[in-house]
């Protein structure tokens, strides 16, 4: 399909009331990291919405500046949490980015490689991850970094190299995992893409924790990336394609819930119904799907978590709110309650806990400077909390915070809340 011939305009087709809901009161300004960094209205949520409205009204073209602003936005959705008028900013920014891709199809190399090739197929991603794993294990990567050979890949790659996650030896296992004890519920689990190759242990921990709470877990092998990286970055058609693949991969009728342990994925999967609303073959199934998607901490706290009976862990922990949990799904209490249920955890509240860490999907690749500034700010706050472990429920944040801690030479451990819980269950005396 040639986008230039496609007369559909994402912004013009949008229900105008969504754009109009913004009363430009300015309450979003203090929540916005890009406004905070620039103090420019055009880089604020209400400024961007004004631009989108001008495009929808045909007063303003989709200019280069418009495109830059739409992608300068982190998509952290902090504005959505504080908006008095209840503006659905997520829908707006996704439509605006899709409009940019439609009108100005000028993909960068990172967009082509990451979104369209690597993250659009889990098979490709697993092969690429295996190659990276080989490089990491053989010492090739360390050698390249030490000798400066990595500079041959270009300055940008050399800077980004620390952000490449450590690939795990084993990826996520597929199949059915029985409940421990009498079965309460049967749930599906999304393995994710980054989560699958770099944090497969988090997926294994999630399966274990769910089993320990009496749930059967199904991890379908045919599942794909959830499409959030694409949907959040204007690749509307790819996102929809991936959503359809997942709808078909999961035995929806047999599952009480579809669980996800990555904030960004969950936020997007809950909106499959919107993404597929105009797809007559999939709309009904997508609506059922969206009704069943839950974040793993949300599910555990709402179905009654079994408190681990282990010796106190004796650790100071703080919790970083992933944007797509706190702002995208309004989930703040559940992960904290989950952590607080673990014996011997001194849970310290983090200053600016829900201020974006700068990972923001592929933002740390597209806008490394602001991303790095946000990472430093996050780390300063983590240090001030006195915690030695930071818990967060999103792989992007985990990579970002871990890389910043290593750069600063700080002995900080980044863990998923569910992994800390799994550890607590493992430490229980046999028969507990």
């Amino acid at each position: 399909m040639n986008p230039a011939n496609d007369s559909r305009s994402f912004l013009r087709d949008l229900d105008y009331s969504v754009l109009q809901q913004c009363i430009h009161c300015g309450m979003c300004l203090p929540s916005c990291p890009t406004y905070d960094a620039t103090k420019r209205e055009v880089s604020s949520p209400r400024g961007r919405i004004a631009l989108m409205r001008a495009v929808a009204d045909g007063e303003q073209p989709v200019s280069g500046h418009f495109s830059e602003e739409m992608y300068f936005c982190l998509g952290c959705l902090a504005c959505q949490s504080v908006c008095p008028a209840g503006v659905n900013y997520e829908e707006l920014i996704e439509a605006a980015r899709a409009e940019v891709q439609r009108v100005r199809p000028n993909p960068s190399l990172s967009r082509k490689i990451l979104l369209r090739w690597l993250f659009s197929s889990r098979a490709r991603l697993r092969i690429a991850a295996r190659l990276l794993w080989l490089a990491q294990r053989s010492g090739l990567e360390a050698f390249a970094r030490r000798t400066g050979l990595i500079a041959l890949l270009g300055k940008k790659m050399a800077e980004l190299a620390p952000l490449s996650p450590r690939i795990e030896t084993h990826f996520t296992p597929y199949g059915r995992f029985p409940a421990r004890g009498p079965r309460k519920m049967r749930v599906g689990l999304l393995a994710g893409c980054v989560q699958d190759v770099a944090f497969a242990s988090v997926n294994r921990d999630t399966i274990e924790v769910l089993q320990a709470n009496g749930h059967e877990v199904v991890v379908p092998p045919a599942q794909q990336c959830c499409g959030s990286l694409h949907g959040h970055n204007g690749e509307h058609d790819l996102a929809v394609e991936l959503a359809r693949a997942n709808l078909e991969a999961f035995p929806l009728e047999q599952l009480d819930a579809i669980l996800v342990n990555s904030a960004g994925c969950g936020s997007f999967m809950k909106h499959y119904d919107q993404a597929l609303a105009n797809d007559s073959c999939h709309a009904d199934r997508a609506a059922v799907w969206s009704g069943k998607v839950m974040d793993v901490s949300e599910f555990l706290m709402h179905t009654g978590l079994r408190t681990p009976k282990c010796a106190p862990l004796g650790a100071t922990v703080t919790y970083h709110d992933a944007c797509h949990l706190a702002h995208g799904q309004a989930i703040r209490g559940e992960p904290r309650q989950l952590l607080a249920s673990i014996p011997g955890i001194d849970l310290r509240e983090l200053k600016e806990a829900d201020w974006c860490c700068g990972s923001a999907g592929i933002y740390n690749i597209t806008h490394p400077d602001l991303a790095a500034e946000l990472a430093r700010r996050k780390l300063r706050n983590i240090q001030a909390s006195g915690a030695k472990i930071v818990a967060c429920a999103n792989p992007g944040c985990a990579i970002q915070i871990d890389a910043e801690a290593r750069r600063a030479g700080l002995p900080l451990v980044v863990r998923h809340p569910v992994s800390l819980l799994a550890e607590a269950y493992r430490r229980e005396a046999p028969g507990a």
Partner: protein
Amino acid sequence: MSHEDFLEDLRRAAPGADLLDSPEDLLAYSFDGTPALRQKPLAVILPAETAHIPDILRAAVKHDVPVVTRGSGTGLSGGSVPAPGSLVLGTARLNRILELDAKNLTLRAEPGVTTLQIAEAAEAAGLFYPPDPGSMKISTIGGNVAENSGGLRGLKYGVTRDYVMGLKVALADGSVLETGNKCVKDVAGFSIKDLFVGSEGTLGVILEILLRLLPKPAAKRTMLASFPSMAAAAATVSEIIEQRIIPCTLEFLDKTTLRCVEDYAKVGLPLEAESILLMETDGHPAVVEAEAERMAELARKNGAIRLDLAKDDAEAARLSSARRSAFVALARLAPTTILEDVTVPRSRLVEMVEFIQDVARRRELKVGTFGHMGDGNLHPTFLANEKNPEEMKRVEEAFDEIFRKAIELGGTITGEHGVGLAKKAYLPLAIAPPALEFMRKIKRALDPEGVLNPGKIFDVS
């Protein structure tokens, strides 16, 4: 001289400033928090130093370009909506707190510091800055001074003017004057600072503000009372004040607002109530305790259907959320939310609220009214759609009636939002010709070329 020459002069005047003039930037500065008012400026400048502002003004005068000063653009009367062909002078980057003097209880700040930052800095020193306008998380202190902003604590603690001890101001000709100091008593000459407080950016550009702080009250009690009529709520307030109790908060919601709030926030408000009253008293713990009991008693005596007295901070926050979410709850119901701030003497408040409800009924409009019962400041909030010109016309007509009624009751057209553009047409209702002519004389004397925020509050000729 060309546009390019003007920009070049600005760059020379303010090294390191952000100078913006792309169509996208101009669009983003074409509005403030006021509904349905839009005007693109010629350019926008965000200086990095207050010291550069006099030269920016000189450049503007030289090129005959009007200057509209802007803080965070949260105003509700169009005061910072650009004049046609104007330069927007944004203070967002001038955000340093320069000094907190704990011995004299003062704080000195640049104009772009947010009200919240002021309140937090005061609190960190065990002190208190009382004015708390609704947008205090982002509104700037410079904007607060220019608009003489109020807030929820007006009755007991007054408004922004009561906390301004001194100002440093750049005048239209680029000269700088300082007025006021840290002395509580000072009668050397005219109180010039009071001229600039509430002048809406028409007389000068505020470069620095010296604020008065108070000791932080040691205790606070919060309660929420529901009444079968607005009159019962008002009678409660009158009796509380007759008994010489001055609560720090006396906020009410009318029936429409309380239903919207309950729908949105699920605070557990009794839906059969006609009005609810949020009351707070603060001060010495023993006094606060006695006052809270007395206030509760008076509410019961006046027929309160229900009374919730907060046991702790968390519960106080929950009760306050009923009032704090009033605007939010209403704003979600319609694309365009038009919030006004007519004010009447406290004794005429019930009459005014009933009149507003009547106007809305007659003109087939949806309105929720909430506001400050202690100081007679009302926020009738009309829910409409700016894409519907016929409906917007009815809203305008409704406001016309409401403004006239407020004046008739001995009130004013605006209690805390300012006149700006939105209420300019109604100013002659509130201000008699001699006073209006006096204001014009001052404006002409201080800004003969009409460079500073022209067209706001009133026209000079």
